[in-house]
């Protein structure tokens, strides 16, 4: 999180269906939603918020391909140039024997690469403390947050009471 000290007004909802309706209303009222927090992924929320499909899997593919090449070219170099050993009368360059390791390294690179990419993009990691709005959005509450510099406090509050939020709070994060 590059930005600091954002004044936020947020409403907590008890149910994801009510929250989804509220998001639809916010869209039609042209209220700019800063973010929505939920304890679990809510189906159909992404298109409502206008979020594009994640490009994380492109990174995953690139890391995976990198892993494939590392393993395959690495073994090729080791077993043909660096330290050729005959195993069971097989040729030095024994492609079938390379496949399992190539597969493993593809998976390893793709998974680790994606985790690192994801953590970097989200600003997560060991020793990093990220501000959060409310404990209960990791448990049973669904939260819609507005940035006060984009949405008037009073407009947000009337929006929350109209859409059935169970609680409205202000916070600076």
């Amino acid at each position, binding site marked *: 999180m590059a930005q600091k000290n954002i004044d936020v007004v947020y409403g907590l909802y008890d149910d994801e269906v009510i929250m989804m309706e509220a998001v639809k209303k916010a869209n039609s009222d042209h209220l700019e939603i800063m973010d929505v927090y939920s304890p679990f992924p809510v189906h159909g929320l992404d298109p409502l918020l206008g979020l594009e*499909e994640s490009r994380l899997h492109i990174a995953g593919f690139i890391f995976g391909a990198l892993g494939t090449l590392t393993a395959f070219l690495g073994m090729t170099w080791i077993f043909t140039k660096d330290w050729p050993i005959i195993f069971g009368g097989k040729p030095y360059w024994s492609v079938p024997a390379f496949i399992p390791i190539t597969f493993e390294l593809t998976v390893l690179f793709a998974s680790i690469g994606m985790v690192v990419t994801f953590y970097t993009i989200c600003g997560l990691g060991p020793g990093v403390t990220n501000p959060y709005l409310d404990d209960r959005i990791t448990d049973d509450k669904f939260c819609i947050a507005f940035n006060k510099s984009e949405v008037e406090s009073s407009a947000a509050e009337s929006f929350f009471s109209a859409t059935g939020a169970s609680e409205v709070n202000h916070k600076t994060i």
Partner: protein
Amino acid sequence: MNQFVFKSTVKTFLISFMVLGLLCMGITWFSDDELHTRFWTNLLHNSVFFTGISLMATFFIAVCITAYAGWHVQFKRVWEAFGSFIYLGIGLMVFIALATYFDLNHLYHWAGDIEGDKVLEGKSGFLNKNWYLFGTIIIGGTWIFFYNRLRALSLEEDRDGAGVNFAKHRRMRWYAGFFLPIVGFTSAAMIWQWIMSLDAHWYSTMFAWYSAASWFVAMIALTILILLYLKANGYYDNVTQEHIHDIGKFLFAFSIFWTYLWFSQYMLIWYANVGEETIYFKERMDNYPVLFFGNLVVNFVLPFFILLRNDTKRKFGSVGFVAGLVVLGHWWDYFLMVKPGALHTAHEVAAHHDHSHGAGDHGAEAAHGAMEAAGHGAEHASHFVSGFTLPGLLELGTFFGFFALFLFVAFTSLSKASLVPENDPYLGESLHHHV
């Protein structure tokens, strides 16, 4: 539209393809060698392939019921329709088994004279005509029984409602639970008998899984094709991109699973380098190189790279294209499992005939001649043998005939019940399915 109408134009279309198939089989029979190997292998190949698809459809219904899955419920009638081919499929297999029993074909080396053949004598407890015939009848009958029960309960549920506490569904769960381990073991036993024993001296512990995976992928691909066809004709409006996406994932995942098994089998044999095991791959790589490597391209490389992206699994064009490719690809895979072994057996039988001819005059020399003939047979295969080295037009015609037959049976079954099982307890979940 909740009732599928099997239009007479479609019927005519399918029947004309069935006639084409019959015609091709007839031509194959009359243009064949004296053993009619090409005819019998084509019959076996297609019967096993489509019987397997129908078995896998029933198997997958059982899997979904046992796993408390709900997403598929809207279109589970399609799988029930595929499953209905099992009656005819087992009928065809029993026909082949009877023909083997009465020595009318020479598909299987073990079914012939195995005297002095230590390996086949050792296997004769399992690889014999009685087992083949009665295994086909008993195990096939078991599959039919379970399919019949699952289908009947599904129809009852439609008619009478789900019952108190979803009694019908619980009953189905009971049958499904029993069916799973049974199909796990019996499908392996039948694959050993029907397919693996074509290469009678050879065996592989991976083989049953590998061919069953081939069936399964073909079934999934065919499901996609049929669903797209039905949607294009105005049925199944509620089967959306989301459902197709999930079946597309199955297609993707199980194509990889198939490749995993294919490769595991290949690598273990390659690594161990035991002559009696490597012969299987040597035969195929030397004499069928295009089919052998093309098999991997069609069934792994193309589905993998095309379906890797999220959106290609959701777009009907791309997922339908891959599904069509993969159905053909696994038919091709079965071609490779069936043909080389059967061709080899045919050559051996021919050589054996030569052997018994000359045996009276000069024993040792004749034996030598037989060996030469067998060697000549293997050599012969390295030249182009139409219908064996590559699927010829007659093979394709037979395939289309069987395909049309399969679709005819499936569509007939589909038209006998409502397309969406209205009283299935998981219907709501299926209607709201979202990935």
